[in-house]
């Protein structure tokens, strides 16, 4: 809360937060207010905007505005779920890495690093080859790809805590691991975890959008797929591509500005 109060005068961070929030609201409320069924054919392909269809029609003659309003909810829900699960497991793995004895920790760390060698989009594609895309597999694969990366960041933060006197003292009194984790470690790494969550949410969204664009989304009518399907009509009906590009862009850039503000506020508080 103190951190958020410190962001009060940060115009850039607040603008970013508002921008990202606006896109989230659009995605949440959108399905309820969409003027047409996003799957219905209501006219000729790539028809230009008119009063009934302010953003025109897409490659199959569907209403672009309705697709835009309906295509964000599942996508954002998947991104949030993958981020929370991935960072949660990353915190656990990072804590284990930080508290293991030296030799096993070294081995575990090099195994962890081996999983970071491939970019996340490649890991996702690799895993989806056999499993196929569904909301469940997408969340699982993106969460899985976050774990080794978050574990690295959290490990360093936890090591800083475990080398402190108060931690040694608590351990000396014979405190249990559960106590040490929730009462000594977690409160002292909250800042790191919050920043990690915001970074990972951006990466989840980027990977999910890219997978959708490449044809591996859970549905065929989210923002990423819209861009792919309508790319061929760029010269005739650019809005069918630019509308989802703007939605994704506003969300990602807004979230990044907010995260930047958050990091600065946390650094100031520390």
């Amino acid at each position, binding site marked *: 809360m103190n951190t958020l109060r410190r962001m009060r005068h940060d115009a850039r961070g607040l603008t970013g937060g508002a921008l990202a929030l606006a896109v989230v609201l659009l995605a949440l409320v959108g399905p309820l207010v969409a003027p047409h069924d996003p799957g219905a054919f209501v006219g000729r392909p790539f028809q230009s905007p008119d009063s009934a269809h302010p953003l025109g029609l897409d490659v199959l003659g569907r209403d672009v505005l309705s697709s835009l309003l309906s295509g964000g909810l599942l996508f954002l829900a998947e991104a949030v779920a993958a981020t929370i699960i991935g960072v949660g497991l990353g915190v656990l793995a990072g804590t284990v890495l930080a508290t293991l004895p030296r030799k096993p920790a070294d081995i575990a760390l090099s195994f962890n690093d081996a*999983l970071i060698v*491939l970019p996340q989009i490649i890991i996702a594609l690799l895993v989806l080859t056999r499993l196929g895309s569904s909301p469940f597999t997408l969340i699982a694969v993106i969460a899985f790809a976050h774990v080794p990366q978050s574990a690295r960041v959290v490990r360093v933060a936890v090591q800083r805590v475990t080398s402190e006197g108060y931690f040694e003292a608590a351990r000396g009194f014979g405190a249990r691991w559960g106590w040490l984790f929730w009462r000594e470690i977690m409160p002292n790494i909250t800042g790191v975890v919050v920043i990690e969550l915001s970074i990972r949410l951006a990466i989840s969204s980027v990977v999910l*959008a*890219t997978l959708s664009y490449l044809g591996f989304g859970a549905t065929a009518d989210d923002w990423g797929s819209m*861009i792919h399907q309508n790319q061929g009509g760029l010269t005739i009906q650019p809005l069918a*591509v630019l509308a989802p590009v703007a939605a994704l862009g506003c969300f990602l850039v807004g979230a990044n*500005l907010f995260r930047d503000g958050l990091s600065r506020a946390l650094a100031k508080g520390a």
Partner: protein
Amino acid sequence: MTTSAIALRRAAGEHPIARYVVKRLIVGVVMLAFVSVAIFFFTQALPGDVARQVLGQSATPDQIASLREQLGLDRPVVVQYFDWVGGLFTGELGRSLTSGLPVAEAIAPRVANSAVLVGVTVAILFPLALAMGATAAARPRGIIDGIVTVLILLVIALPEFIIAILVIVILATNVVKLFPPTSIIDSSQPLFAQTDLLVLPVLALVIGGLPYFTESIRTTLREELMSEYVTWARLTGIRERRVLWRYALPNGIGPALQVAGTTLVYLTGGIVAVESVFAFPGIGAALTAAVANRDLPTVQTITMLMAAVALIIYLVADVCGILLTPKLRSALAS
């Protein structure tokens, strides 16, 4: 033990930097082994009927039997794994399940195309990022510094495919039509003879890689410029330009190489999206197609190749970083 291994060990025993390189190499090989197990697990060893998943519900029992035979799915998983790893060494990577061609033969021209794409990108990106990062560090609140800040706040958040789409909108379709919006390459001619097809994919990759690289150079150099030896150099009257390029930059080269390595690995991920946007016939687009068609041997080969390249890049960046940074070099030698 072979004579070369003995020579290697002798050299390593005598020379601390050689010892470090050998140690780093062994770690790299172990990591590659980990990665190979993960790749094999997710493509071939995952529970479920591989042959039916690949061929789909409409496949006849004969087709399924012949695919099982081709992939050797009836044997124990461990045997399948070592057979596959053995194939990586001998170059027998199996046949593509879609084209029927040997995988190595099918992807070789695509590897070459992607290598040209990444090579040209790097040739533009690295010097540009270095120049922009150095200028931004030397002149805080200048124009370049402002551009770097905008890049880091706005562009870094965008996925490569959106950058690529925006590049198409601005330069190929809606605003001006300077370059073709797709890169359908004539394979009978060398890629260098078709440079107009390279411009937009390279531009998208350069814009995508620029923010992180420039920002890292700016941060590193700013730290160096605030250090005591720089203050001393300035006090002795050495000109600012020389302080930057001759004193600060060499000390920042180690971290900069790490960033260069990370950027190169980022580009191996970036080409997947960018090649697909422009229909550029490279290895990234090949991977996307292979995943869509569940062409397991091709997916295995391409991901393994990307992992090996990434590990080599990190190794070279680490070793060069140590060789080029005076402080680290002497720390290792003592």
